[in-house]
């Protein structure tokens, strides 16, 4: 025990001063296009460093500047201030135009996650085409979540860190209007009374999937 605490003291003693740690995370965040977790940073820093504390300082330092330290899920990144976007017309990345179906599906996954395909179909009232999900997976805006503990153990979808990064969200809890929707009960999983066409459970899903014609082939 005595030894262990000695070690701890020693490692605290060895950790660089916080100002130096701030420089380190500044360099790492500047160098990376992808968000870094505090763990990623700690692994690269000298033993005993505390990137979380250094981040508090760094964040403050960049307040109101041309670039900002932003939180993306459980990671951190430096991004330019949105009000200066007009200066970066040359850096603008053309994002693939998403179909209405894909945009709606994405919104449903973001607000209802973790959500199964059947649940998405119930909300949209139409079968989800494979292409829509594939496209969102390929863009790395959604990924598979844990399976639902319901019959058939269906897979679920959740949004990714890339999604949060793209839309400038700290977490999925910061989605616009989330609180209001929840208060209005619109995010409740309200099962339909009795049986209804199209909007039922998994059986309906199968039905609609096997029904020819009506799916998202109507996408533009």
């Amino acid at each position, binding site marked *: 025990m005595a030894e262990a605490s000695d070690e701890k003291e020693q490692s605290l003693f060895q950790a660089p001063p916080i100002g130096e740690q701030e420089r380190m995370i500044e360099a790492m965040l500047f160098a990376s296009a992808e968000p870094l977790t505090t763990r990623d940073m700690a692994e690269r820093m000298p033993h005993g460093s505390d990137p979380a504390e250094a981040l508090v300082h760094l964040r403050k330092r960049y307040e109101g500047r041309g670039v900002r330290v932003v939180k993306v899920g459980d990671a951190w990144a430096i991004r330019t201030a949105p009000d200066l976007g007009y200066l970066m017309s040359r850096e603008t990345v053309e994002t693939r135009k998403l179909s209405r179906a894909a945009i709606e599906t994405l919104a449903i996954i973001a607000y209802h996650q973790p959500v199964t395909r059947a649940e998405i179909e119930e909300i*949209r009232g139409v079968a989800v085409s494979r292409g829509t999900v594939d496209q969102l997976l390929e863009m790395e805006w959604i990924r598979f979540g844990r399976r639902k503990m319901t019959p058939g153990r269906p897979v679920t979808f959740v949004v990714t860190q890339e999604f949060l990064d793209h839309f400038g969200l700290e977490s999925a809890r910061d989605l616009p209007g989330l609180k209001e929707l929840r208060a209005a009960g619109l995010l409740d999983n309200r099962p339909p009374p009795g049986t209804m066409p*199209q909007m039922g459970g998994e059986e309906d899903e199968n039905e609609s999937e096997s029904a020819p014609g009506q799916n998202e082939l109507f996408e533009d």
Partner: protein
Amino acid sequence: MVEDDFDRDETPVNVAERLAAEALIVDVDGFEGPLDLLLTLSRTQKVDLRKISVLELARQYLAFVERAKALRLELAADYLVMAAWLAFLKSRLLLPPDPSEEGPSGEELAAHLAFQLERLQAMRDCAARLMGRDRLGRDFFARGVPEDVARLRRVTYTATLLDLMQGYARIRTRDEFRPFVMDRDALFTMEQALERMRGLIGYAGTWTDILSYLPEGFTADPARRRSATASTFAAALELVKEGRAELRQAEVFAPIELRRRD
């Protein structure tokens, strides 16, 4: 199926209204399923979706399906399934409840449909708000020249004492276990060597180490190398005897060199 009030509604009061109605029909492919169509129809009621008249909506939907049929437009199956369900819902809403009947009441079903429409509308609004946010690569930007973390890979090899001992034991006991076979494959005969040398001697205008005449595949393995060296040397002597070549060696253990004799 056609309602009186539907007929009234659809009686073309003016051309614009009629065109709008037809546009709705013709655009059936533009709808993402019956729920989407219902949502669009509900907008004509111009009320909060919570206060929507599901009965009225059912009438509008059924009228739409009738019109589509009249225009011989093919509707996908789920539009028709929805039509049947709405007709059932309408009858439930219009008739006094039958206490003997099981299942949800017309009001419950109507409330759920209203909920679904409201939820779908809410999701559409959310989607629009989401897409309208400041976005990475459009409004704010990541580092233009990311410096990738260089991954230096260092490989260390390891082995245990057991590996070592088993390795040694394997070698030392290999011969004990060998079945008796003639190792013909490690043999390069003098006949073979002579044939090979006769073919090559014509090119040996300058002094060349006879070891360079060893055939391919007989240089690495010591046993094969030994056999090939001996037979090649013997073949070289044979060539000298025939008067076709000369041999020389500078000193003991020095390379033995061969040259064509013209």
